């Protein structure tokens, strides 16, 4: 992973969010306040802009800047949560070209930030329910010696599975918790955007791997 790649990841998230904006809002409309698509879109568009002429030395700096931008533009619950996560990930990647183990540790720092701020646990029907399995899968692959691309694909698959698993859950945190049992049967918007984040990572790393392979 390098700074270009980090930037490409953020751009890929922005593109995915742009494409799924209405879907995210629709999911948030069912059990929240119908702004998650707009929130994510505002934040990641701003991040792409902020990164456009930002040329730092480390992957981490790119992601810290992304997190800071999210915090200063998103608002809502997702702003501080994603913003804090990207800042934590970035702070843990203070190197020009981290390896899979380092990335796994950084992603773990991101989750820790979300858990600390949001005080939510797996099963509460939040973004954590996509993030935690994604992290576990990534770590497992990295520990097994897989490369970044392979680890990221496993993470994205796990995130999507985690995302789908939020549907039957009853929310205990965030706005959806106000609905009590009526939150059951709806997929969590934040878990859905987290799945987009990990899928974007997998695609970014995958196409880099391909282009490297083609050389």
């Amino acid at each position, binding site marked *: 992973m390098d700074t270009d790649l980090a930037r490409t990841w953020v751009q890929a998230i922005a593109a995915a969010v742009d494409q799924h904006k209405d879907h995210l809002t629709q999911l948030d409309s069912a059990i929240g*306040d119908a702004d998650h698509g*707009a*929130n994510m879109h505002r934040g990641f568009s701003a991040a792409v802009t902020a990164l456009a002429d930002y040329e730092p030395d480390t992957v981490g700096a790119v992601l810290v800047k992304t997190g800071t931008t999210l915090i200063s533009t998103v608002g*809502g619950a997702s702003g501080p949560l994603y913003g804090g996560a990207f800042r934590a990930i970035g702070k843990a990647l203070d190197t020009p070209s981290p390896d899979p183990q380092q990335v796994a540790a950084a992603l773990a720092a991101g989750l820790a930030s979300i858990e600390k701020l949001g005080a939510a646990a797996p099963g509460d029907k939040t973004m954590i329910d996509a993030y935690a399995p994604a992290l576990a899968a990534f770590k497992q692959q990295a520990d097994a010696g897989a490369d970044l691309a392979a680890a990221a694909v496993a993470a994205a698959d796990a995130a999507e599975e985690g995302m789908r698993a939020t549907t039957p859950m009853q929310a205990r945190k*965030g706005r959806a918790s*106000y609905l009590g049992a009526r939150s059951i049967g709806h997929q969590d918007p934040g878990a859905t955007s987290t799945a987009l984040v990990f899928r974007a990572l997998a695609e970014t790393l995958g196409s880099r791997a391909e282009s490297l392979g083609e050389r």
Partner: protein
Amino acid sequence: MKKLINAPEAVLAEALSGIAAAHPGLKVDAENRVIARALGTKPGKVALVSGGGSGHEPLHGGFVGRGMLDAACPGEVFTSPVPGQMLAAAQAVDGGAGVLFIVKNYTGDVLNFQMAAELAAEEGIIVETVLVDDDVAVQDSTWTAGRRGTGATVFVEKIAGALAEQGGSLTEVADMGKRVNAASRSFAVALTACTTPASGKPGFDLPEDEMEVGVGIHGEPGRRREKLRPAKDIVATALDAILADQPMVAGDETIVMVNGLGGTPLIELYVVFNEVAAVLGDKGVAVARSLVGNYVTSLDMAGVSLTVCKADADMLSLWDAPVNTPALRWGI
């Protein structure tokens, strides 16, 4: 979607510009999205800052002015503002006596205000926070996000604002805000869903003969769906929930707000208030002060929220103190 707007993305900026044009007593920082008193904060006065998603107007911008807030930070529709906004507000209005953040209990508002408080502390501004969580439709527990903050925000802002104006210290003003919140309970029902500019569609479909019971102010469905009933029954349901959580006895004095959620005609709010006054009257509970109107709205949602504050003599006298804001004004 039928809205008097130009574009969903432009609503907040244009509304802020309209607020600036309409109210000479306010000054609007368009870049930071901060609505503050045009005259600034008197040195030595504790400054009150509130904020939250837009779509609840007149909350919060309409409550900026003498005797109430010093500044408000409006976020996008139904989206908490960002820490930078709150910091800019705190910096703009700190009169040296510290800043009180009045925060409605939503994850987004709480987290963003928390970050802002940290940033403000780094800038040497002393910040205290009052968390408003009055909505008895939501169960409170350490395992959940806790109760939502709704109508009681108006009471907290008014009463704490009056104490600040009278020279109360940051601790005193914060304590009073907490006391008011602790004494206040709310409950709301919706007859229709609201439509955010960004989503363009009503948040839920509600049959012609049904209502959502126990809704918040962000267009989310309520705790349960029921057949629409006469105003008398709706008031009974709401007051039962409120009084179960905050028991009152004959002789208690209250401040009551019958609040329209945005799409309910004022004549209906008076019908509702009539029922509230009757029920409380039967129990010997005095409605010492009241508000009937649109104060904490949910865009175009039809419905009503009731807020009851069991008020002591201090609160009542602070309630009566002069206030001069776009949405609440007396004694000036």
